[in-house]
């Protein structure tokens, strides 16, 4: 199993723990990654908001790079997935548009041809790798760890461009993965809602109220932590959590775990190497539970 790996900007910037844990976890699972060092930002939906055409070319450039490598593309960000699926849908459907975009890529010797497979790591795990195989790799059953899934908007909506017809359970994969590694998936109100990150700069109060409310609702349902495939959600849920707690006037202290970190813990990677110590909200409570499981 080998993929063209698009790490996204955040895993190479503000969330280095995501990048490191992804590299280690994939290697141990036997998933080969060839990083797209020359890929560019997808625009996270912000560029397409103001300059849609530009966003299309930028994303087509990434697709063409993956195709040149001859591999399916894997990303580790709900937002990247959403933007990539959206642009791809347009390019695959509209030949004229595609020709126009390709004309701009030609100078670099690139061309996008319809049909590239683009998958978030979460989809890869369930659809390509398989939960049974994953279960075999688990050396540290995460029994007793209660995880609230937090998807991130763009990997769920709009469902029509996200392959939900072909894979109707894509809105439930996070729960399936959590259960596959022995942990318990906690059901709570906010799991498919918005973390609020996109309006953090514009309306801090609303942004943090959303983050805080979802964390609180998971906590009320007894979650020890949240697990997310989206680093942008992670920024608002983890790095901003102390501020969110202030805004909603509640104590929170709920660790936010990146999906590859959760897997890494289960397949026996040293928590330090997964950089579990590099979170704003300390993850010790999670580690205590997980390591206790090992001894028991």
């Amino acid at each position: 199993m080998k993929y063209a790996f698009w790490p996204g900007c955040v895993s190479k910037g503000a969330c280095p723990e995501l990048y490191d844990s992804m590299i280690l976890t994939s290697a141990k699972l036997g998933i080969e990654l060839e990083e797209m060092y020359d890929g560019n930002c997808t625009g996270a939906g912000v560029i397409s908001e103001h300059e849609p055409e530009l966003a299309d070319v930028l994303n087509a450039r990434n697709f063409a790079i993956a195709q040149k490598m001859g591999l399916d593309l894997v990303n580790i960000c709900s937002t990247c997935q959403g933007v990539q699926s959206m642009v791809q849908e347009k390019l695959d459907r509209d030949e004229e548009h595609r020709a126009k975009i390709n004309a701009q890529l030609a100078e670099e010797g690139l061309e996008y041809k319809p049909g590239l497979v683009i998958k978030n790591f979460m989809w890869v795990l369930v659809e390509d790798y398989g939960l049974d195989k994953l279960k075999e790799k688990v050396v540290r059953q995460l029994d007793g760890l209660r995880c609230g899934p937090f998807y991130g908007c763009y990997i769920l909506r709009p469902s029509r461009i996200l392959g939900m017809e072909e894979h109707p359970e894509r809105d439930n994969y996070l729960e399936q993965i959590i259960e596959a590694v022995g942990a318990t998936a906690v059901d709570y109100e906010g799991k498919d809602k918005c973390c609020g990150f996109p309006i953090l700069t514009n309306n801090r109060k609303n942004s943090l109220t959303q983050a805080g409310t979802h964390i609180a609702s998971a906590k009320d349902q007894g979650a020890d932590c949240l697990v997310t495939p989206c680093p942008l959600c992670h920024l608002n849920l983890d790095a901003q959590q102390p501020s969110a707690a202030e805004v909603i006037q509640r104590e929170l202290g709920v660790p936010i775990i990146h999906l590859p970190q959760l897997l890494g813990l289960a397949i026996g990677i040293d928590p330090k190497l997964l950089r579990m110590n590099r979170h704003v909200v300390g993850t010790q409570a999670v580690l205590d539970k997980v390591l206790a499981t090992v001894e028991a």
Partner: protein
Amino acid sequence: MKVNLNVKRFDPESDGSTRFQQYDIDMPENSTVLDALIHVREYVDATLALRCSCRSAICGSCAMRVDHRARLACKTKVTDIVSDEGQEITIEPMGNMPVIKDLITDMEVHWSKVRQVVPYLRPTGPPPEREYIVSNEAMLDVAGAVNCIQCGACVSDCPVLEIDKSFIAPAALAKAYRFTGDPRDGTKKERLEMLSNVEGGIWDCTRCNMCVEVCPKDVRPMDRIMQLREQAVAAGVKTNTGVRHGTSFANSVRRLGRLDEMRLFPESVGMFAVPRLLKELPGAFRMLWSKRLMMWTHAIPFAHKPIPGIKHVRRIYDQARSEKKEHSK
């Protein structure tokens, strides 16, 4: 087939509490959720209150939450929701509005927002001798928004409205676009200024796609909101953090080929918004420290290394922008 409904009930004349009631009925295979509910009301429990009229997804009166999502009950088949016979279907009234009884909500929340966006044309200048003439193209652009049947589904499920009652919310903002996009309206700039600067305006949408997902008429309210933002930027309504955020984001990608999220914040709130920046400082330091990120790389612009193919990214940018300029001429 067997249909098991779990319906949220509320009777204003009782003690004000809500409860769920189970109805197990037999319905033809191709029934809609509305058919099932009407069957309950006619033959099982006449006290069940619901609202409907056209039964064919036209009037917009039967929106309710089916399986935790706002939908038109008359457009949703039972088999769209359950795969196995006998599986339970949860039915609740819409969210974000007070419940009058059972599945009937008070939609004043929605109507007040529609009034807020001044939902009628305001032509300026002397009226034409005969009728106003508009091009087909111009109307095609607003046609998507005109398709709205005011069912309120998007209002029900908008997560920003859940936490901020001032948010104008998706349906009314789509309605606003219907007028800013109409060449007969003479108050476009005024409208855009209001929509940008008012509390709960276009920049408060988080782009979560919920309204796009639930809308039964493919109005895609969020896309209209993005169009409103684009119009606001084009019209020179520029005082807003949202606008700066977009510019800063795009510039970062042009400079590096990727996003420098650390610089995004100060550039978005404005480099000179000192009180606001000071308020954010503890948060920023908290993050830099706990992640042991190199503070200096974020303090000095250009310290991040651009991607190898940066010259192509810049070329793509400049080409797209010059085309845009040509276009707007």
